[in-house]
């Protein structure tokens, strides 16, 4: 156990976590240079393209330190987005230490702080790492000061790195060996292991990623999960991750690895759950276990009217690998059969949409995301509603509540006014602000979740010219006055465009929705009237004017192929459109009603 170190890299998005992981892996030669691929831990195309980590990955790095001894350094990579903060916390609970990565030119940001707090909650030893020191805009002294003032860490312990150029990477491995404690635990005690992730393998079923706290696990053991004592599984294989799975005879206290045990779907395992032996269970499960609850809901429909069976299959397969995705059948007058889905956040929603479209070649429509509202009816019945289609007759509703978050925003103080305006516009309440340094401000707001799920983060980035950073926690439900905003297209109500909004915001939302739809819906050969309505009352309107002239003047030998290709392209574009009545509505229009430009 003395030769094991378990650590994570925690960082704000874009501070270079994936690049640093790549360098660490390259330095320990577990993959040949020929097989190496940038951002090797990010397996999904979406992760590489967006530069984010969605599924956490783990890798066991063998390293011979300056002291001549061989160590096994388990790097537990974590998702880098607030939507997945519970998964991050479980990964951190499997470590003894963490590298806190800070971009030398960006400095400490809200997520850096949030991650540090999370790490400190788990009593992790922290090694600050200043990355991107090769950048001309790097300001190491400033970052060191932030490390001292904002984070309360000793800046002298910070390791200077350029992951891109490979500078200082060896120092990190040495630092991990010297400054992080080895795991503690009792290999002879009853088995107690913490699940921090799982993924689905088409051949082997669910692969559970875990850290052994106490005891030993081996193939042939009969195990169970502490959250469900009724079901047990026989372990088929245990092993460690070295990009590929490397089977081991046993995994003992302190080690990190995987288990295959004939588990059919990832939903049968829960992140944060404890694995123990069926016959000789441990006394207490690991603390902090909770079920990840979706907070954002949206309906998914296939664009093609005959695409439903494919969507069913695709969702079933995706669910195998994504336990936090929940869904149930839904129908829409405008869009036909689909599913109401729950997501951890908007990024999660986008990831699911992209994976369904990319990996299963589906063309989908997602309706405007909604939060869950708590309603009390006149007769005392309590009701949870996230789907505008299921919103009851307003005369039956006694009261409504909506979820609130506590938002932590860190910005240079020159943007204070802009951030204040943004948050107040979103019905926020400023609870507190404090200077972290002489020009950096931490602002705390309480905001309705419904106001931040869509484009809040983008807006924050834009009003702060990219300097604002944001983190949030759900806090409670508070009374709200809700109305259902409907959209009518050529006089017909399109149920999939309805949304639940706060009464105060209804008129401006209605207006924006009409304007956005006007921009999204392509001109057609007839006039298209778009109206926003609450109950029977029209509160906003816009018009898509028809083509007055839509004809190509000349078409000779050299023009025909080009013209045909244009028609083919337009026809392909229609794969992403839905006919509602006589009107073609593009996929993107269904989400656009929530956008808030021009408010």
């Amino acid at each position, binding site marked *: 156990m003395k030769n094991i170190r378990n650590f994570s890299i925690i960082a704000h998005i874009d501070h270079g976590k994936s690049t640093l992981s790549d360098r660490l892996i390259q330095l320990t030669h577990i993959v040949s240079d020929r097989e190496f691929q940038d951002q090797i831990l990010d397996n999904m195309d979406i992760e590489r393209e967006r530069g984010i980590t969605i599924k956490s990955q783990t890798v066991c790095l063998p390293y011979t330190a300056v002291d001549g001894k061989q160590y096994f350094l388990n790097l537990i990579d974590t998702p880098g987005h607030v939507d997945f903060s519970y998964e991050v916390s479980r990964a951190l609970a499997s470590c003894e230490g963490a590298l806190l990565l800070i971009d030398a030119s960006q400095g400490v940001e809200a997520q850096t702080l949030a991650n540090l707090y999370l790490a400190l909650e788990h009593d992790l030893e922290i090694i600050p790492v200043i990355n991107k020191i090769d950048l001309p805009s790097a300001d190491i002294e400033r970052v060191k000061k932030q490390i001292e003032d904002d984070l309360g860490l000793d800046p002298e312990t910070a390791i200077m790195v350029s992951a891109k150029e490979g500078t200082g990477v060896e120092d990190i491995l040495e630092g991990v060996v010297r400054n992080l404690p080895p795991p503690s635990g009792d290999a002879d005690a009853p088995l107690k292991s913490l699940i921090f992730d799982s993924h689905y393998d088409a051949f082997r079923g669910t692969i559970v990623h875990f850290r052994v706290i106490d005891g030993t696990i081996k193939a042939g053991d009969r195990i169970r999960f502490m959250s469900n004592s009724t079901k047990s599984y026989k372990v088929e294989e245990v092993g460690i991750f070295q990009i590929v799975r490397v089977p081991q005879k046993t995994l003992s206290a302190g080690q990190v690895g995987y288990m295959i045990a004939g588990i059919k779907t990832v939903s049968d395992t829960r992140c944060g759950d404890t694995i123990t032996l069926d016959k000789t269970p441990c006394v207490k499960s690991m603390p902090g276990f909770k079920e990840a609850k979706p907070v954002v809901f949206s309906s998914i429909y296939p664009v093609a009217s005959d695409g439903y069976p494919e969507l069913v299959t695709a969702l079933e397969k995706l669910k195998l690998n994504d336990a936090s995705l929940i869904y149930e059948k839904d129908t829409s007058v405008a869009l036909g059969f689909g599913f109401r889905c729950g997501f951890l956040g908007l990024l999660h929603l986008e990831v699911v949409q992209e994976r369904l479209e990319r990996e299963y070649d589906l063309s989908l429509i997602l309706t405007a995301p909604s939060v869950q509202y708590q309603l009390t009816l006149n007769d005392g019945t309590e009701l949870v509603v996230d789907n505008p289609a299921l919103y009851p007759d307003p005369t039956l509703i006694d009261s409504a509540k909506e979820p609130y978050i506590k938002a932590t925003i860190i910005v240079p103080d020159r943007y204070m006014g802009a951030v204040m305006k943004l948050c107040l516009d979103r019905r926020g309440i400023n609870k507190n602000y404090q200077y972290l340094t002489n020009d950096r401000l931490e602002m705390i707001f309480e905001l309705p979740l419904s106001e931040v799920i869509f484009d809040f983060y983008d807006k924050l980035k834009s009003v702060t010219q990219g300097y604002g950073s944001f983190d949030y926690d759900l806090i409670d439900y508070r009374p709200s006055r809700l109305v259902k905003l409907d959209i009518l297209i050529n006089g017909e109500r399109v149920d999939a465009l309805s949304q639940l909004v706060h009464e105060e915001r209804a008129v401006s939302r209605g207006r924006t929705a009409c304007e956005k739809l006007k921009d999204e819906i392509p001109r057609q*050969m007839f006039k298209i009237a778009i109206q926003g309505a609450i109950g029977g009352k029209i509160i906003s309107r816009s018009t898509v004017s028809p083509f007055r002239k839509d004809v190509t003047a000349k078409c000779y030998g050299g023009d025909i*192929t080009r013209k045909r290709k244009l028609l083919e392209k337009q026809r392909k574009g229609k794969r992403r459109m839905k006919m509602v009545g006589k009107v073609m509505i593009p996929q993107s229009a269904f989400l656009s009603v929530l956008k808030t430009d021009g408010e």
Partner: protein
Amino acid sequence: MEKTIASPAAGIYIHIPFCVKKCLYCDFYSETALSRRSEFVSHLIEELSLRQSEYPVDTLYFGGGTPSVMDPDSIGTVVDTIRRLYRLSPDAEITLEVNPGTLDRTALDRYLAMGVNRLNIGVQSFNDKHLTLLGRVHTADAACRAIADARDAGFKNIGLDFIYALPGQSVQAVLDDLQRAVAFSPEHLSCYMLTVEPGTPLEHGVKSGDFTPLDEEQTADHFRLVSQFINTNGYAQYEISNFSRISRANGVDYRSKHNLKYWNHYPYRGFGPSAHSFIDNRRSWNHQTLDAYESSIDGGLLPVAGEEVLTREQQFTEFIYLGLRQTDGIDVQEFERRFDVSFYQWFQPVFEQLRPKDLFRNSSERCALTLEGQLIMDGICRIMVDRNLQPNL
């Protein structure tokens, strides 16, 4: 409706890639390096011999660019070469596009002598202000002189090209151009609404705000005016932008036989840079630039840059699109023969969705567009072509 061209004979198109100066709106390929003309002619002749064919040919069209910037003798050489290597029928339609700014009286005699029997004169406008706006090198006077000279030389089939819907152009200005045009009694008129093509100086000017294109409503008004005026002044529209003089007395058809081949999927061979060919459902196109074109031929290769064999679906798309461009419309029986479906049954949902009375002039033989239908024909095509993919439209 009479069957237009019964002959399966092919057309030949020769692209002359030179201009004295590029016009602001033009996206055809041309060079202003006139010193390369003689080199080009030898390459063109080489291409003609590389592609020698026994296939009967009944139209020959010199387009560009500006064919009239060539020495008439070079045009003569090309015509002779084609006569020698291809089966050009003795009564073939031989058209030359000419620019009033590059035309003199003696050249006209020589063109006539070598067999050119149809002139297409790029007048564009009789208004000098508008000619300058378009970046043309000639004046209205020069255009009038060119037409008069062509008649004087003995040309019996003259076409005039016009452009309308220019920035700031009034309805009256369009009418003035048309009145002066018909006064010359040309056999053919092509009137194009100004199109802002990508990559042209015109597009640049629109983006920078130097030009403000007419809005759609004004452009539509111009289109209606052009069609109505020409159609009531002794001409018949036969394609979106093309009109021919009605000459029932002697039964002569003044429609451009050559251009009709493009719209009816008849075979044609194109020579010169960027020219397209279409033979046996295969369309190919030459290298776009003079450099690529010539070096390919220097290497003993056909200067072909690409080709496609039309799938059934692509034929379908083109058949609809090219059919609706013509005033006669889609030949319903031909459609049914080619695609083996009942036309009106197939498009039933489309006609339900659109306003067939306003937009179509349908009969059991033909599906054609009204004037209002023509104005939005690209949109109509998008819907009809879509029918191919979405049986449940």
